């Protein structure tokens, strides 16, 4: 038994990594080292007086330095899609050389691709040609390779994770709901939304980092209850205290979403190619600025084709193995998770932000400023 007691959390500036670093710090019992890709990512862990280090998983020097005295690595960093596999390899290699006693790799249920039905950890991975999912599949393979070499590795597959600090499934969904453009999508968003609240997931990951029987295993960690995506939108909308959601029919939605897709692609290209020119036009012309804002807002607050696929997927990720082996037991109900999410959104100012009083611009006055 070594006297090392440092837990390195990679991606500690991110959503899950941030939750892990904070939880480990608050619970005590281990010295937390928060690894961040670059300094701006330290915003969240730096609220705690914890050890923060630069740990870009593609930077071998930083990876090696981060491993000094580390007993356990919890790898939450994502990086660019094309870096997922190599980044995991770099960390696993360094962990092996430093005699790390446990390596927990946070993967995703996206490795199952588009498979439907009740899926557990015995199901094979399915490549969808999506760089993120494929990167995660390859990273899992590398984890197993290092486990065979003697590094004690555990793989965790979370589904949809929500809660305070979540950009994708909390901030973005709240913004869409608040826009008034989002709604309930009959016959489209009736797929299963496998939601797990952040602190439940983190508890499971910590259990996996300690449980001896977990070594070499892969675990799905799902949430407290199963609901559809439409139910998620409805319940989140209620938690935010917003007006009733509009109901969209599937035929119309599919058509408008398909029509909008090429517009999205053109906008993305224009933004990438002519960002400077567009900004310049927007700065000079009020109407152009308003049109750009309107179109951008519409695109952000209406579903994409990719979203429709996700919202319609009839799949349930089974976490019985985690419950049996790890003693995993999610405790946060959806109602409670959404209440906490809404509270956080209010605290950061997304909900109850300063509302503008201007709805029209009847009069324009010019004032020359000496500067």
């Amino acid at each position: 038994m070594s006297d090392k007691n440092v837990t390195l959390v990679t991606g500690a500036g991110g959503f899950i990594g941030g939750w892990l670093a904070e939880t480990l710090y608050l619970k005590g019992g281990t010295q937390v080292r928060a690894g961040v890709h670059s300094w701006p990512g330290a915003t969240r862990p730096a609220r705690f007086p914890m050890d923060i280090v630069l740990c870009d998983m593609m930077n071998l020097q930083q990876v090696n330095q981060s491993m000094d005295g580390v007993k356990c690595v919890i790898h939450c960093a994502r990086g660019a899609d094309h870096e997922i596999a190599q980044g995991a390899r770099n960390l696993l290699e360094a962990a092996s050389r430093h005699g790390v006693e446990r390596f927990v790799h946070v993967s995703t249920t996206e490795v199952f691709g588009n498979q439907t039905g009740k899926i557990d950890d015995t199901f094979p991975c399915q490549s969808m040609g999506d760089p993120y999912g494929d990167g995660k599949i390859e990273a899992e393979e590398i984890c197993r390779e290092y486990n065979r070499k003697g590094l004690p590795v555990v793989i965790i597959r979370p589904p949809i994770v929500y809660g305070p600090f979540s950009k994708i499934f909390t901030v973005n969904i709240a913004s869409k709901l608040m826009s008034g453009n989002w709604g309930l999508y009959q016959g489209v968003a009736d797929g299963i939304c496998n939601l797990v609240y952040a602190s439940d997931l983190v508890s499971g990951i910590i259990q996996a980092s300690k449980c001896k029987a977990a070594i070499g295993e892969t675990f799905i960690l799902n949430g407290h209850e199963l609901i559809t995506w439409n139910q998620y939108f409805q319940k989140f909308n209620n938690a935010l205290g917003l007006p009733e959601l509009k109901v969209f029919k599937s035929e119309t939605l599919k058509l408008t979403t398909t029509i909008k897709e090429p517009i999205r692609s053109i906008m993305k290209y224009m933004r990438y190619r002519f960002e400077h020119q567009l900004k310049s036009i927007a700065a000079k012309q009020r109407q152009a600025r308003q049109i750009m804002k309107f179109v951008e807002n519409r695109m952000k607050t209406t579903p994409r084709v990719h979203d429709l696929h996700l919202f319609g997927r009839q799949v349930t990720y089974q976490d019985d193995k985690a419950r049996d082996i790890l003693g995993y037991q999610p405790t946060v109900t959806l109602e409670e998770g959404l209440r906490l999410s809404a509270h956080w959104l209010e605290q950061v100012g997304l909900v109850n932000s300063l509302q503008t009083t201007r709805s029209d611009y009847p009069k324009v006055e010019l004032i020359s400023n000496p500067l």
Partner: protein
Amino acid sequence: MSNVIPKSNPVSNSTPRIAIIGCGAITQSYYLPALARNPAVLINTTLVDNEETQLQKLAQSYKVKRTCKDYRQILDEVDGVILALPTALHSSIGVECLSRGIHVLCEKPLAENAVKARLMVEAAKKSGALLAANYLGRITPHFLQVRQFLAEQSFGRLLSINYMVGEVFNWPTISGFYFKDDKSSRGILRDRGAHVVDHICWWLGGKPRLISSVNDSFGGSEAVAEVNFEYQGCAGQIRLNWFVDIPSRFIVECEQATIEGEVYDYHRLWIKKSGRTSEIQLKSVTKTQIDIADKIITNFLDGIRYGEQPIIPGEDVLNSIEFVDECYQNATRFNMPWYSFAEVQNV
């Protein structure tokens, strides 16, 4: 002090010799692009940083010939310095320069607390050197216009100020000093809040009385903060966050009208009066942050050359620094029920 050449008097019409001490993100993205508009000054500029790679990178990009790793080596050779260092270093190096009669343009915040800021102001007074502060919001057209409306009481008595800034922190800090225990002078309130509190003190013409200060720090640099204040019957609230992008704006309510502005839309204000909203477009040559930097630097160089007073003298920002100090001294932690561990109570 016998061999010190006081530089408090104008140095003649020749091009001032300046040094930029600190070659991090602010020098790279703000000071050097602005200085590049004035090649005669740039050629006489020395870049100083103890991080050699970054130093050489910037020197090559901007064709600056003189570089130095230790600022002490160039103090006899310059008329003025731009301090673009981690905040905790402003005061000690600033006082050293000012005491030697070297003019100082200091990046915001002027210092990590009011005591240290005052040392700089005193050193400047004693030597006669200029101490200018880069609080750029003071020369953006819309903030200036609000100040003018309030000073002239254009819409009657001031009733309230609400100011909200929310942006995911993405400043490309190279040293990461914001987040390092030994170098940080704390989080968003000291950094982004330095501008916000300065605008408010400047608009009010004095330091407000703190009502409450809450943030999310567990002993480190806070990323979310809320401050409530009062000043001569005007109630105010500041809300800041580094986690979520939200529309950053201010609403200034007066007896006869409400003034609204977007923090990053320098040339427009909206006035709501008698149920109607009108847009004011502000004509100004100041369009970008580099234009602002250019003005601040030109003013600093004119101060060195012709004795012109700084647009933003260091002394003028003491109120805001004192107020931020009070916010920290009286801060309590937000109720954050998502940290539902018993251990939280002990942190």
